[in-house]
Every structure is written in C-alpha cells, then in structure tokens.
C-alpha cells in the first residue's frame, strides 16, 4: 500500500482549517449562552460516549477525569486537550461541518487506552 503525500496533506489540511473555524472563530459563536455538556473520563471510557451537536451550534464542553490524566482528541473539530484529574477542562466548540466524528483519548492511560473513545454527531 503506497500513500501519496498530496492526498494526506490535503486531508489533514482541510481538517485543520475546519478545526480552526470550529474552535477559534468568535464570530461563529451563538449570541446566547452556549449549551453546556459535561463529559466524564475514566479508564477506559467517556461518559456519555455519544453526544449530538448541531452544525454551527456553539457548545461548551466541561470535561473532568475521575482517575488519571486523559486526553480528548478530535482532529476535524479542532479538539486536542488534556484532562487532568482534579480540575474541569472547558472547551468551546462550534462545529462547522455535519458528520460523525470519533473522539479518542490520546494521553496513554493504561492497557485499555486504545479502546477509549466516544462519538460526536454533528447534525445539519
């Protein structure tokens, strides 16, 4: 299997731009106070493990760990954060593109780390 540079770069570049739009653009945020979604991480699961957002909706994720440091990583949504136990990590997200996204823990947390994931659905 040979992978070509151009295809990979094109893919990751789009994802990166989408992520920037999703997280960093103040103009994309709703006027009203954003909806708050609380997510708990513990080895080796997120709870809830499925959340549904609307495209263009600004939400605030409040994430906490019940045990060790975890990560939350979703490249297309521009999410890449550490979840340190003992404090709440807050992220504001405004997804720009509808779709189903896999969120993973990207901070190695033990033998079941590879299966620690959740799903984020962004509806039109």
């Amino acid at each position: 299997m040979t992978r070509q540079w151009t295809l990979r770069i094109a893919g990751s570049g789009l994802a990166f731009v989408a992520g920037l739009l999703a997280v960093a653009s103040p103009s994309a945020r709703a006027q009203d106070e954003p909806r708050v979604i609380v997510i708990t991480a513990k080895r080796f699961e997120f709870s809830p493990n499925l959340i549904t957002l609307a495209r263009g909706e600004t939400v605030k994720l409040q994430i906490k760990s019940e045990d060790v440091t975890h990560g939350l990583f979703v490249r297309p949504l521009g999410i890449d954060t550490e979840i340190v136990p003992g404090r709440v990590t807050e992220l504001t997200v405004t997804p720009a593109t509808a779709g189903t996204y896999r969120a993973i823990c990207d901070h190695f947390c033990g033998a079941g780390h590879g299966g620690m994931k959740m799903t984020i659905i962004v509806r039109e």
Partner: protein
Amino acid sequence: MKKHLDRRRFLKIAGTSMGVGALYTVWPGLGRSAEAAELARRLGAATGERPTPFSFAQLSDAHVGFDGPVGTRALEKAVATINGLPRRPDLVLFTGDLTHDTEKPGEHAARMNLFKEISGRLQVQKIYHVPGEHDAGLDGGELFRNVFGPTSYSFDHRGVHFIGLDNVSRAKPEVGAEQRAWLAKDLSRFHQTTPIVVFTHRPLFDLRPDWEWFTSDGDDVMNLLAPYENVTVLYGHIHREDHHISGHAQHFAARSLSFAFPDPDKVEEKKAIPFDKDQPFKNLGLRLIDRTTAAGARADAIRVQDVELAMSELSGTEGFQQLTKPATF
C-alpha cells in the same frame, strides 16, 4: 536503476519482502571513479566512516506479556530466523512496544527483562531500541531507560546516520520541543546527502489520527529532516505494513510480532484481525529486503542510487511462510 553520480542520490535500500519486521540491505552504488571516491570520503568525514554495504533488520510490537495466542512465539521465531540467515544483519532495530504494559507491581519489569532475554539471543553486532507507548506511556520511559538506556539517541554505522526518536514517553503522541531541538543540533553536522534512517514508534505523519496513528508534531520533525535528501523513516505501532512518501522521505511500517490490525482504509473500527489458529503467524511477518538491484551492473559503472525501501510482490503475504521461499540474501 543506474543513475549518474550526483549528490542527490547515493544509497539504495532495496530488495525482496518476506514479510515480522524487515531486513534491509544498504548497498552504496559506488564505482571506482575519483568522483565516487570523493563522495564516499566526504560522507565518511561527516559520519566518521565511509559507506559500505551492510544490512540491518527492523522488528516491532512484540508486546511481551500481551494475553494473546501468539505469546512470545513470533518474537522467538523472528530471532531464530535472523540468526539463521546466511548473511546476518549488522544491526537490529526494535521500533517500540517491546512489552505490553501492566500495573501489577514488578510485572512490567519482568516483561521487559523477558523481552531483553529473548532478543538478547540475536547474534548480531548491536541491537537498538526505541519505546512504544506500552513500554513508556505510563511512567514517562523510566523503566525503559533503566533497562535499555536513553529513549532517543543517534549513531553512525558504515556511513549511514541512524536516529532513534521517542514519540511516546510524553504519553501524548508527540516528540516534543526539547527532543526536536536535540534533533536539529544532531542533524546540523551532516551534509544534505548523508543517508539518514530515523526509527521511531508512531508514524510521523497523519496515517489515521482517529486511530491514534499519528504524531502531533510529526510535521515539525519532518521539516527538520526536509533539507536532507536521503531519509528513510521506519516505524511500528500500526501492526501492519505501510509505505508513505513525503518530500524526500519514505516511511515504512513493520508488521507486528503479536497481532495485526486491518487496513484503515477498509474498516471503520480499529479492531485486531482475529487470530487464526491454523495460521498462527498470519499477518505477522519478517520483511526481507536484499540487494538484488545491485546485481548486473557494469563493474566500472558509477551506480548512485536512491535511499529507498523497495517492497516486492511478496510483501504483504503470509508472514513466516515466506521464509521457506528461496532466499537470495
């Protein structure tokens, strides 16, 4: 492939794939001309040794201690296979996940020592290791360093500069600013045509980020390597073979010595390929790459060849079964 001598192309790592890790032959296509001698002298001055033919093997993802049906058999078989080669490689590079992590007191160290005992049976000049996240993700690499030494380092061998990079012990998939600064300094003494082999655990490009098959600052690492025209990156982690090209660099993944993952382009979920008791080593394998491309060249020709890893049609087949095929090595 014959080419006129120029600084852009010097070595070729080429040959036949035989499916657990890989065995590469580095074959400098030097003739007897003054220009070739000068190029060898110049590279030798940079690395301390002139390029001469040699081979080395890559093994990966043994996961010693993993509760799977293969156990340590694939690792042991790979060791025996390499020891049985008519021309043994000079070096063996292990690209991480030597062990499977555990938090049972003392058990991870026991697994690391078991790995060291088995791999220590390799009858080669030198064995080099970099950690995987299962070796170093929970303790920041402390156990690995106690057993094997630094998690990143470089060395020269017969005119090739080897760089072991650690993209796991910060727990996140990243190399980190400190190691990148070290890399920049390490590279700075080399000419742009110096053959460079980087070995690491995770891919240094976005192979499948939602399967954690990436390194977050992999682009920064590759930018440091970009001025160098002969770069080969060997990695593990994905438990399957893969070939990727970026700029001057070619990236190759070795198969695992424990279990295999499926093609990420064909399935959505990252689940190990089910074990087949009738073919216990299916999808595991040893990739053997030999010097076939060097054969038949005119003795007085100046053959200057790319640094690349060329996989043949045997690549991706039935692992150890391939070792029964006639070897040209």
